[in-house]
């Protein structure tokens, strides 16, 4: 029975937990007038698994596998962040060869994360072919990483004090072959996607983020570089072996979705450059620090270690009270800050544009919900 004379104009819709464009279980509560969104409120927590609560009743070694399951697309950066934080607490210095190995594997993992994003994002915009290209490249990369780390996605490979296994010549040959192959593939991505008129119309001038908004919302990673701020932890707060390589930080100018896409695409080329230089200058020497205590029992104190992941700055903040178990671990995850700007970006946009904006934020839900 239609109630006549109702003047309720806004229509409330759940862009709910199970939705192809939310890359997982994120729910956005939309209030719309016709096609235009008046209010969008992300509701998170559907992927909350309690990593920080687990950290408090596990010792430092047992928490390592969790690190790969917070942001499973760039797991090695989280391993690196956590291991470096604990090494800072224990005062261990990692030998140079191990640092090079960590940089090589983290950069490979960054490329695989960007490949997943490009594929999934274009699937959101309705293009079905690019995800096949991206996953094809990614499978070659995963074969490479699978050889040395033993897993395809949730890597738990770094240890406190270094790396347990060393690279063999087959890995290095495979890495060089992969670099050569991926470089030829960038041409395909540009022709297939970047010059695609539908993609340009859907992303140019949509989802503009100003530098002032970046500051207020604490955005990091490609979101902030897309708006023209060259903020990359590998350059602004050099850690591990990154000072030894020269690479640029690609930045956009207007801060719309196209800029963020181009930043991620060019970042992959920079990662390839880093890996090449790392493979050329790979020093010999041990891959594990000499005296790494079996039972990790750091002194009292706290540490904050920031690392650049594919989505932004991951900060591992550990408070230790001299016990075998950490007293408190806070994981500063980039997507939590990056997503908090969505309500402001979504006002007065079309629903189709909201899907494009949400995809360009590159969220990984269990990373937001921890």
């Amino acid at each position: 029975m239609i109630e006549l004379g109702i003047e309720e104009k806004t229509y409330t819709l759940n862009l709910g937990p199970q939705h192809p464009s939310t890359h997982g279980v994120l729910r956005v509560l939309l209030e719309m007038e016709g096609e235009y969104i008046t209010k969008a409120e992300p509701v998170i927590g559907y992927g909350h698994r309690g990593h920080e609560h687990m950290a408090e009743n596990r010792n430092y070694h047992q928490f390592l596998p969790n690190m790969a399951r917070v942001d499973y697309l760039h797991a090695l950066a989280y391993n690196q962040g956590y291991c470096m934080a604990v090494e800072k607490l224990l005062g261990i210095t990692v030998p140079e060869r191990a640092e090079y190995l960590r940089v090589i594997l983290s950069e490979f993992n960054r490329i695989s994360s960007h490949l997943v994003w490009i594929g999934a994002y274009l699937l959101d915009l309705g293009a079905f072919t690019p995800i096949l290209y991206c996953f094809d490249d990614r499978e070659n990369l995963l074969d490479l990483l699978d050889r040395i780390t033993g897993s395809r996605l949730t890597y738990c490979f770094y240890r406190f004090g270094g790396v347990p296994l060393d690279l063999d010549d087959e890995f290095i040959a495979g890495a060089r072959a992969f670099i050569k192959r991926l470089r030829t593939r960038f041409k395909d991505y540009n022709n297939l996607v970047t010059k695609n008129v539908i993609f340009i119309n859907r992303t140019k001038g949509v989802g503009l983020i100003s530098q002032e908004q970046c500051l207020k919302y604490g955005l990091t990673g490609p979101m902030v570089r897309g708006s023209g701020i060259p903020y990359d932890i590998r350059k602004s707060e050099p850690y591990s072996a990154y000072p030894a390589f020269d690479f640029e930080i690609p930045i956009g100018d207007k801060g719309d979705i196209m800029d963020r896409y181009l930043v991620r695409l060019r970042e992959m080329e920079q990662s390839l450059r880093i890996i090449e230089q790392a493979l050329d200058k790979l020093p010999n020497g041990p891959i594990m620090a000499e005296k790494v205590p079996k039972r990790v029992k750091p002194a009292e104190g706290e540490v904050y270690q920031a690392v650049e992941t594919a989505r932004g700055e991951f900060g591992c903040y550990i408070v230790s009270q001299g016990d075998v178990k950490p007293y408190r671990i806070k994981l500063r995850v980039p997507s939590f800050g990056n997503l908090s700007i969505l309500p402001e970006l979504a006002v007065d946009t079309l629903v189709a544009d909201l899907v494009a904006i949400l995809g360009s934020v590159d969220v990984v839900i269990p990373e937001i919900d921890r």
Partner: protein
Amino acid sequence: METKTGDPLIKLGRLEKYLNLARANSLWPLTFGLACCAIEMMSAGMARFDMDRFGAGVFRPSPRQCDLMIVAGTISKKMGPAVIRLYEQMAAPKWVIAMGNCAISGGPFYYPGQYAIIPGADLIIPVDVYIPGCPPRPEALLEGILQVEEKITKRGRLRKFRDVKG
């Protein structure tokens, strides 16, 4: 967990066998990635592992058009009611694959002090096939789908793969 599907009004006997053959070879999975296993499910759908070879590659977003729910990831307590609702909104005959340790028994996130997850999909919905792994490799998901097909047609689908020599 009692299964929520009943028998049809008219039993077809022999024809049911052929219907099951058709159902087994066209399992349409629901796009329902919860966590890390979702990425491995996507890889299984892509070119190299290609679920389409078994008719299971057509990922449908709406449960109305699906007959296979792959629970890929951890079911948090906040997500539980949504999983039950999606399962009920699927049309019979429907099957469920619990992919990954989290969907089987809470996996790495289950311990006495856990407050946030439902340890296992079979506590809330009837599950047909369990695929262990964290995350299980795409080949494991393919074998899981073949197991579901064996369960539907009651004929050895995996036989020809198992006997392959070398």
